[in-house]
């Protein structure tokens, strides 16, 4: 079993796993960072979204061997104390219902705002279109994102 050094949330973790293992399962089951969720394994739902070198990616379809030189951020590393402006906005807007998709929603939204401070409504729709919410919190997700992007401008 090969050993990999993974840089996750600014910490280096050595892990011994099969090189094809999807990054999602390494993060969850080897590193015990359970905030990143499994929803589909086929990049259809966005629940497993993390940042790889600052971009939002679906960790369920990325083999661990392909990220050894990458800088990975999970929901646990989005902020040190849960006070990323989007996390604050999510709490204020009371976005979640079951909450299962929300880590992925937040990670996608955070990557969007990092590259575009003031996305239009249509740009938010495009960026967030890969993240499913079965509880139907979309309207609040959008409001929360807009509250952050507008307050920045």
């Amino acid at each position: 079993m090969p050993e990999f050094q993974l840089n996750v949330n600014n910490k280096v973790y050595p892990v011994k796993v099969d090189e094809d293992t999807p990054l999602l399962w390494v993060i969850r089951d080897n590193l015990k960072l359970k905030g990143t969720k499994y929803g589909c394994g086929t990049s259809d739902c966005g629940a497993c979204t993390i940042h790889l070198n600052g971009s939002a990616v679906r960790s369920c379809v990325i083999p661990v061997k392909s990220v050894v030189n990458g800088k990975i951020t999970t929901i646990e590393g989005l902020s040190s104390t849960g006070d990323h402006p989007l996390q604050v906005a999510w709490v204020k807007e009371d976005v979640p219902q079951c909450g299962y998709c929300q880590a992925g929603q937040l990670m996608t939204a955070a990557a969007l705002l990092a590259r575009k401070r003031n996305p239009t409504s249509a740009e938010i729709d495009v960026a967030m279109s890969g993240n499913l919410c079965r509880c139907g919190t979309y309207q609040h997700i959008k409001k929360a994102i807009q509250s952050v992007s507008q307050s920045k401008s």
Partner: protein
Amino acid sequence: MNNQLTRREFSRIIALSGSGLTLGILFGIPSGASANRLAAPQGENNFSPSVFLSISTASVVTIHVPKSEMGQGIHTAAAMLIGEELGLDESRVVVETAPFNSTTSAKLGNQNTGGSTSIKDLWNPLRKAGATAREMLVGAAAKTWGVDRTECTVRQGTVRHALSGRSLSFGDLSAEAAKQEVPGDVQLKPSGNLSIIGTSKSRVEVRGIVTGSVQYGIDVDLPEMLYSVIARSPVYGGIVKSFDDMAVKSMPGIKAVVPVSSSAMGAKVRNGVAIVADSLWAALKGREALKVDWENGAGLEEDSGTISTRMREAASKDGRVMSKIGEPDQAFPEPTQRVESTYELPFLYHAQLEPMNCTARFKDGKCEIWGPLQFPEWAIGPIAQALGIKPADVTIHITQIGGGFGRRINFDYALEAAIVCKDLGVPVKVIWTREDDMRHGFFRPANLHNMVGLLDAGGSPLLWSHHIVSTTINVFGEGPNPSNECLGGGAGDFPYSVPNIKTMYSGVRSMITRGWWRSVEYSFNVFAMECFIDEMATAAKKDPVEFRLKLLESRPVFEVRHPFWGAKKSQPDRHAAVLRLAAEKTGWFAKRKPGHHLGVACLHHFGLDSFIAMVSDVSMVDGKVRVNKVTAAVDCGVVVNPLGLKAQIEGGMVMGLSAALGEAITIKKGEVEQTRLSQYKLLRIGQAPEIEVHIIQGSQSPGGSGELSTPVTAPSLCNALFSASGTRVRKLPITT
């Protein structure tokens, strides 16, 4: 049904551990017939709601809520109800899901979560628990100070004696409070004096959710835990003829290969072969390498087309008469106007985002289960049976649930975990991949409705005839299950004034596993009813809202007996009030904005004791429908948390809209055709309309809300589409 509480409704349970006050609140009477809706045959202990409340010497107030949190916000509402009576901010109440075993079920009663009953079940018990604890704390303070208890007040975790300026914290008082006599009757705060109930509160778990620290079933992690995936027959009803695991056993990480027999379990799980490994990835690779020879029986002939034909055949004959008013079969004197329609709706998938999973450990004759279950009471017996132990030796720990929607009423995945872990001595987590979840779901039954209406020359209805045909709900195997062949909700309660009414029901056989999907049969019966009443209004050349109002208000109050809900009376005033409010808020009678088309639907849900009217505002853009805005008016009686109620109405609406616009499970040669989420068209953010929810704050006991908005969404949408295009949608989803 007797809604009165027994005289000896409270009994003190010995303090659990450590010191402080622990109250076990025991109720011997169900809070209403609703509690029984989905319940197994009643026993003494399996249906009454109650709660554990404890106050530690460190002033930590903890409640163990006998309901699963699956996004409906019950833990927040529970904290609010306790906080209200204890005089404590809801944020200072620690909420935990009660575990389930024979001890807790004897003391806590009904721990199942379904049928939109969480608030209905807990409304009285939680307030009584809070008030009882308050009285005992006050009693303890009065005794400590040697003063009259009426001179003591409770505020934010302390009891105060204003005359002497003394105060003691709940923690200081909890040991003394535990020695107090449990009061037989306590006064609840009067409705005019509430400070928490009726105010909007954020979810108690919201910070945990946004930081990723809330633990769902799939996140359970135990020492020595192994992972398992199961190979199940892709064809419904298929069983393992033989399997070859030679290649699997030598693969890295593989720990065991375990056959899962359905016949040994009275067909409560699917037949299959489990691969157990030290990682999920190893288990998945092992499953790929496993060779299984399946024996496919009659399931191979199952096909969406043949199911549809079966339903049409059944609809062409008479069904079982569910309700009959007047002389619906008479020869009506001419002239009459006849309206006739057939509606057909598909199997639907829950698509809860957390796939099925469960962790189980069997050691020293005891079994522990950790998982996202809605109905632990149904699971515990079969789990014990699978392991050859008594139910008393099984404990179920319920985690936060990543979406329930009725799927987790079935407990097949928990039973699988128990079977797989049986000989291993260590915890095993069974995980379903999304493909497993889609292939082996418990789908909303496919259904069809034959509607016939007659109008007299003046446009007044003479006849309403509704024949419901569905594949019914049945957990495994073929054929309608007689005990569940009563999917008449909504139709039997047809609220409009028509002199001759007939509703009939026919169940048709199917091999496909079918279950409870948010709002169950209301999701299809109300679609047919509210679309067809609109067709009648059009035929009568009447405004759809005015037509409905007149028919609601001209019918005297009537009573219906539902197999689950019991006897319920119509409430035309509340029904009409939500309809009027929705019309008013959307400018129904005003001049419409160009290109905007409105459609309406409404419902008095007799089971939930709640009312809703919904207006959809749509436009046609390049020949496609765009839903601009959806407005709902609701009356659910007293509202505990308006923010939570709005979320439920919005969520149920989005689910209804998603289903109407794109969702369908289809079957070909006994297999589900949709095996990826991209093949099952769920609503995404760009299609989500603006939603407005208006609440009528009633004074009646709280009604249910989780399943209230889903049934009216598709009909309000399709009625708006008719207004936009002149074409009636009679088959869902709209896009196929």
